[in-house]
């Protein structure tokens, strides 16, 4: 009887909004899982709710956390605070971006696209150069080969060889024959080990998501877990 009470009305002390919320979440969860049997209207309805909620959430968050503090407040500040008039320019670019919906004016959205693409191209060029290219090459050439014991040195040396072999594999300007072909082949072996490890981690990741939902169903809804 205690279990039935907890299942229907929540454990003692639980507020009504939490009880209703748990039931709503459980029904929506089971509606999605019904797809595993076969496609059905409950799943389609839950999917539509999911799409609608996601869009509304993003719109509200963008408004409160980005557009108000960065655009509307600087242009229409409270009395006594200065107007940041130059924020009207990104405002115009933002409007131009939305003109993409109107075929006759959609060419103006290219100005906004050009701004965004130029910005990303600039920051990514330097970011990848310093954060990945230089830093990773530096780490490779400074890999310790004289300290740490025999096994550690051997593994570090193998890692350096692996980096070079992988880079040779991706070098397609020369045919993969002879020594280059041998190095590329070694690169493939390193890549296969890495992709196998990635597959193992991917399985772990997907299963974890299921464990999370099952924990909710078994603990918070059905009260079958400690």
């Amino acid at each position: 009887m205690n279990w039935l009470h907890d299942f229907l009305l929540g454990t003692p002390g639980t507020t009504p909004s939490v009880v209703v919320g748990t039931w709503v979440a459980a029904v929506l969860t089971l509606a999605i899982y019904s797809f595993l049997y076969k496609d059905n209207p409950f799943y389609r309805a839950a999917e539509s709710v999911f799409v609608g909620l996601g869009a509304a959430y993003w719109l509200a968050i963008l408004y409160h956390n980005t557009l108000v503090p960065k655009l509307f407040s600087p242009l229409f500040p409270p009395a006594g605070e200065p107007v940041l008039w130059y924020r009207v320019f990104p405002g115009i670019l933002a409007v131009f971006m939305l003109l993409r919906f109107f075929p006759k004016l959609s060419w103006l959205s290219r100005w906004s696209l050009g701004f965004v693409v130029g910005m990303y191209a600039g920051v990514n060029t330097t970011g990848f150069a310093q954060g990945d290219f230089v830093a990773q090459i530096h780490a490779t050439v400074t890999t310790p080969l004289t300290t740490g014991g025999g096994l550690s040195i051997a593994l570090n040396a193998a890692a350096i060889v692996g980096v070079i072999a992988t880079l040779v594999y991706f070098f397609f300007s020369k045919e993969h024959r002879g020594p280059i072909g041998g190095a590329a082949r070694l690169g493939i072996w390193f890549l296969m080990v890495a992709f196998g490890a990635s597959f193992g981690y991917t399985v772990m990741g997907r299963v974890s998501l299921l464990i999370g939902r099952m924990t909710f169903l078994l603990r918070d809804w059905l009260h079958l877990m400690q």
Partner: protein
Amino acid sequence: MAGFDIRQIDRRVIFTLIFVVVAWPLIAPMRLPMDVTAPVQQLYDTVEAIPEGSVVMLAGDYSPDTMPELQPMVRAFVRHAFRRNLRIVTTSLWADSPPLIEAAMTPLAEEYGKAYGTDFVNLGYMAGGTVTLLGMGASIPNTFPQDYYQTPVGEIPLMREVTNFDDVALVMNISSGTPGTREWVQQVQSRYRVPLASGTTAVAAPPFYPYVQSGQLVGLMGGLKGAAEYEMLVEAPGDAVRGMDAQSIVHALIVFFILLGNVVYLAERRSKAARADATA
């Protein structure tokens, strides 16, 4: 059994097996022993070494679909930080993160007697990804002019001490995709040299090992196992530790499926070859 073909097992049988095998260890835990890996131990040791009263940044860049893996990481890190009297500034490059961080932090703040505005602050979400990161490098208050609750940052006591990454002892990035750890490494760690750690999904973790080896990441939690290890280190086992039993059994089942599938495949290949030899 007449008509049963192991090659044509209905996938709903496999689905049912997975359901049962996940549910059983959750209801009846086995409490299997677990080790702690070097990248997680490194992260723990780094946080332990931060002087009390320092400001750390919790950068939540994740969404609800990865909550089972990442929410335990957030809780374990926040618990560790509060226990060490570190002050936390949280930011998000993903719109989904602020309420999830809020849901994780609020009960822990109550447990440790921490006050919003002095001990921790949630700056909310800002669009822009990589561009926002660079903006933070110049000025965090200018990039996040108000917090998640629309309070101007000038009115928040903690934010008067934080201008840019020079005032942050560690950035703990909880990330499930892009923008995430890679962007933090490229735009923040490499440019401003602030210590950076990552808690990420299992899917995203393997490509970040080069960053750990190069020292660009001072620690890495990968997936539910990484979260479970950190929970054990902070002596607060939670959802991640509880989930590892189920993780173990399901992995064993999937390995069994792979091996069984290949046994069937190799047997089929051999019989096809034998039939081809017979007709030749």
